[in-house]
């Protein structure tokens, strides 16, 4: 019993002391408790995004669009004006918002199914029009909300509930590198791929989000921040194992770093 206790509570000392405080909840994040599974990357990206919004002082100027998928309830947590879009339509909804309120900062927050399957047309055309949006794309290679079905970004051979024998690329298609695809479009200004599986990557993701929003302030074009993330529940892994999966399986196929960066003039 004590052994189990040790596994469940590996932290032996009381470290919840004010002097150990590294960061606080940004005032832009609501007090609503996350419904996300323990260890899920969504919570981290939500926090980072709201930290950036808070630090840039753009709370009153920011309008976000939530997708359908696990982050369908993003508007419960992100303390800015938000709209919830139909599945796949976030980029269209965001276009509608940005076109009538061009002075505002508009972002979408979408998963791989929303952005790269059902919403591919909306994503590609918003990008191609060079809409001044920040698109935050959470790629965890699996459908979370509907419980573990294959995503367009699921890796080759990956077992999901709809690819029970592993993703067979000959019948189920190849994992889609949509960020690379979008980077070719002239309307796209900035594309980067980051992750939140390590502290270092978390910091880089925050910088990327900040860059995306800064570019939008200058109306430079479509910006996409892909975040390679995990899904412990549907991968049937512990949070730590799922982060290892991200490091060992996902990142080798979806390499991190900037895919399209503005030319320095």
């Amino acid at each position, binding site marked *: 019993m004590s052994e189990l206790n040790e596994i469940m509570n590996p932290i032996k000392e009381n470290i919840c002391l004010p002097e150990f405080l590294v960061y606080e909840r940004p005032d832009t994040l609501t007090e609503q408790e996350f419904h996300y599974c323990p260890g899920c990357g969504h919570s981290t990206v939500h926090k980072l995004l709201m930290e950036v919004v808070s630090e840039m002082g753009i*709370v009153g100027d920011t*309008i976000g669009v939530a997708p359908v998928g696990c982050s369908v309830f993003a508007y419960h947590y992100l303390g*800015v004006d*938000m*709209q*919830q879009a139909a599945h796949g339509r976030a980029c*269209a909804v965001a276009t*509608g918002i940005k076109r*009538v309120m061009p002075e505002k900062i508009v972002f979408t927050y979408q998963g791989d199914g929303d952005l790269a399957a059902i919403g591919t047309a909306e994503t590609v055309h918003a990008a191609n029009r060079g809409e001044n949006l920040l698109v935050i794309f959470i790629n965890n290679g699996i459908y979370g909300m509907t419980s573990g079905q294959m995503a367009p970004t699921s890796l080759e051979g990956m077992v999901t509930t709809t690819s029970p024998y592993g993703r067979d690329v000959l019948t189920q298609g190849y994992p889609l590198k949509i960020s690379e695809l979008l980077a070719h479009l002239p309307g796209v200004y900035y594309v980067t791929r980051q992750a939140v599986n390590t502290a270092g990557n978390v910091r880089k993701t925050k910088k990327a989000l900040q860059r995306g929003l800064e570019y939008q302030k200058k109306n430079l074009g479509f910006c996409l921040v892909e975040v390679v993330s995990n899904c412990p529940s549907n991968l049937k892994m512990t949070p730590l194992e799922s982060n290892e999966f991200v490091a060992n399986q996902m990142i080798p196929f979806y390499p991190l770093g900037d895919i399209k960066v503005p030319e320095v003039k």
Partner: protein
Amino acid sequence: MGDVKFMKGNEALSEAMIRAGCDAYFGYPITPQSEVLEYLAREATKRTGMVVLQAESEVSAINMIYGAAGCGKRVMTTSSSPGISLMQEGLSYIASAELPCLVANINRGGPGLGTIQPAQGDYFQSVKGGGHGDYHLVVLAPCSVQEMVDYVKLGFELADKYRTPVMILADGAIGQMMEKVELFPQMERVVTDYPWATTGRPAGKDRRYITSLHIQPEKMEEINHTLQAKYKVMQETEVRYQALHLDDAEYLMTGFGLAARICIKAMELGRAKGYKIGMIRPQTLFPFPTKIYAEVAPRIKGILDVEMNAGQMIEDVRLSVEGKTRVEFFGRMGGMIPSPDEILENFEKYFIKGS
């Protein structure tokens, strides 16, 4: 007095949109309504600064409408039958999230890709809630180019008043034909300040969010009750119809839009032959003018319902008269237009020769 012009239905609709102070139009080309996007692209932005954007699909267009309407802007889209089918998901979301917007369907013959000729086969889709869930659009049925203009103004007013999507259900003929029309003067584009609109969280206040998702069934039922209460008020206060010769009518002809207009001619021909025919033309298909049908039903011998479909509005007419009079149907489908003579022949077949 506004300007009097000779205009095509689709262009008059577009001109009315600009003059009504519309903030944004998102649409996708489809015959027979492509003139709308063309006209707006040519005229709107340079005159009022209105946003005009050709979307990549009707699916995208209606979701752009959702986004812009959610910012409290006056927005509109138009399409024709197959495109309107693609918009149904979005319309359901818009109705549920209670966003005001105006949509025009320049109905063409279906089902499927069908034909580009005029038809009224989208009555059920428009009136009964074409998307998922329990909701209604306010549905306005113009029968002339003048009403295309009038209903843009009225449509925006009703959309704002009830925070609801409003549909103008016209058809290819009304979109394509030209008539004399009186245009209302240019209205200011209004900066709204709706408490629900997502325009950026106001300092010191709660942020707003627009959603149609309420996972708790208790909450979702509450939303449904709110919507239904709204529809009930509309049914009590927003019914509009045109009635002719009800004082001496022994028979009625009824229909909406273009079919009704042709019926008026058939009625005139019939009256010249001595038949006492009256006419009811619903201008709002939702809310439907149930009461006037119920009122006249006991004292008339029969109703001929004429539509450019297989018989859709007739269901509402029959529900309204509650069996108190005979209701017969004549319709043409697939883009065919009934002629006044044909209508009168059918009237005589049912009510004069057969009776």
